[in-house]
């Protein structure tokens, strides 16, 4: 028990369980206490009063996927920058040059994406 409680991440576990319990409890209460008059109109998808039409799964433009891809790449670059941020003072100019190369390559990629129009939305 001691090593579990002394673990710095233990409060997160407590919070997860607590959030789960709270959500479950409130939803259970809501289900028990609320009225249950289900009717076909209530069960339809909501379209501001129009009768629902067509399949709910429509085809999406690919720019969503491109945005997610761009996010992933720049997020990884930010993740690589975090350890350097902590060691900045210790590594000095040498670290700056190393990261400078890293950031330069990232900037080249960013510029390429910009010129190609990947950063435009519609």
């Amino acid at each position, binding site marked *: 028990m001691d090593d579990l409680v002394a673990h710095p991440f233990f409060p997160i576990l407590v919070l997860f369980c607590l959030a789960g319990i709270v959500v479950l409890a409130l*939803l259970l209460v809501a289900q028990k206490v609320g009225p249950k008059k289900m009717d076909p109109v*209530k069960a339809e998808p909501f379209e501001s009063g129009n009768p629902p039409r067509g399949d709910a799964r*429509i085809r999406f433009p690919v720019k969503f996927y491109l945005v997610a891809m761009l996010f992933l790449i720049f997020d990884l670059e930010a993740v690589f*920058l975090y350890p350097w*941020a902590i060691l900045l003072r210790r590594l000095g100019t040498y670290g700056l040059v190393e990261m400078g190369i890293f950031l330069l390559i990232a900037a080249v990629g960013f510029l390429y994406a910009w010129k190609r129009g990947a950063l435009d939305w519609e």
Partner: protein
Amino acid sequence: MRQFVDQLIQNGYFAGAPKELVYAGAMIVAALVVLSVFVAPLAGVTSWLERRVWARMQSRVGPNRVGPQGILQWLADGIKNLLKEDIIPASADKFLFSLAPYVVFVGFLSAFVVIPFGRELIVADLNIGILYLLAVTSVVVVGILMAGWSSNNKWSLLGGMRSAAQIVSYEIPAGLAVLTIVFVAGTLSTQGIIKGQGWAPWDWFLFYNPFTFVAFFLYFTAALAEGNRTPFDIPEAESELVAGYVTEYSGMRFLFFFFAEWGNLYVIGAVATILFLGGWHIPAIPALADQPILKGGLQFAVFFVKAYFWVFVAMWVRATLPRVRVDQLMSLCWKYMVPLSFVCVVGTAAWMLIWPQGNRPVSMAMFLLGVVILAMFSKRVGYQIRHARPVLYLRPYI
């Protein structure tokens, strides 16, 4: 937190109980207290305050019936939502539909683990504090996609996808702006970042160098966009997509999404305070030296006021600015904020190498610049308030 419990044990409380059990119990009680006494009323009062602030800014009254000045409005709304019928659309994916509010709620609530309430009062001072905060707020995106898809409704899906694309895009400038401060502080832990600052405004990281000054505005804008707040609230645009990804949600499930949204406002303000505004620092008053409870209370009050001020600013922005179009939103992020935040990062790194101990005159100059900008802004706002011509003069005591 641990030191706090140790102090209590030394002072004779919990005598006789095994230490681990005391720690575990204290942790569970702390989490419960944080959740029920702090987060729930905070999110609720924020929702009431938002409606009041909007109303007063639009020369109307706002909710003022339930309780003194309407402050219990959120309780009434909460109980009402609890009593509503739990409707799940017939063609919706039941399991994912029920799971989505939980994912969003957990993603939001876990942020409170690293937000300090005072020098010793933090649920857990993780070594990766700020990184943990960024990681946990990115879990919300998955919940939103879950909600959008499982509702089996075109508008929900479109709203969910757009919201996910927006949140995900704005995480980059937010993360890089936070990184700028990590350079200055040298640690990822939230208490460590606060301890690197002082109580005086020119000791705050906000005025440390011009790059951190810009980084603050980048962070705040990106955080507003991540929280789906105006002017970036396309996914919730009432006039366009009904309610976006929460269209099919009603009753308690709906409340969980909005609970997370209002609570997130406080998280934004708290993170801005931790990183840029000096956190819980108070000037060293000799009279308080041996009164830890009073000192802790004062520190908490200072932190809370600073954080809540930014909640008020977010509401103010929502009442004032029009909505940004989705392509403007995306180009703002990728073409302006991302390059600017990279410039801030590199600039701060170079600055830290040239002046490792900080440059006091520049900080003071930045502080004076900030004061001048604030004075000019307040003058303009005062002018607008004095010369506004409301159609109806109301006297609702505030």
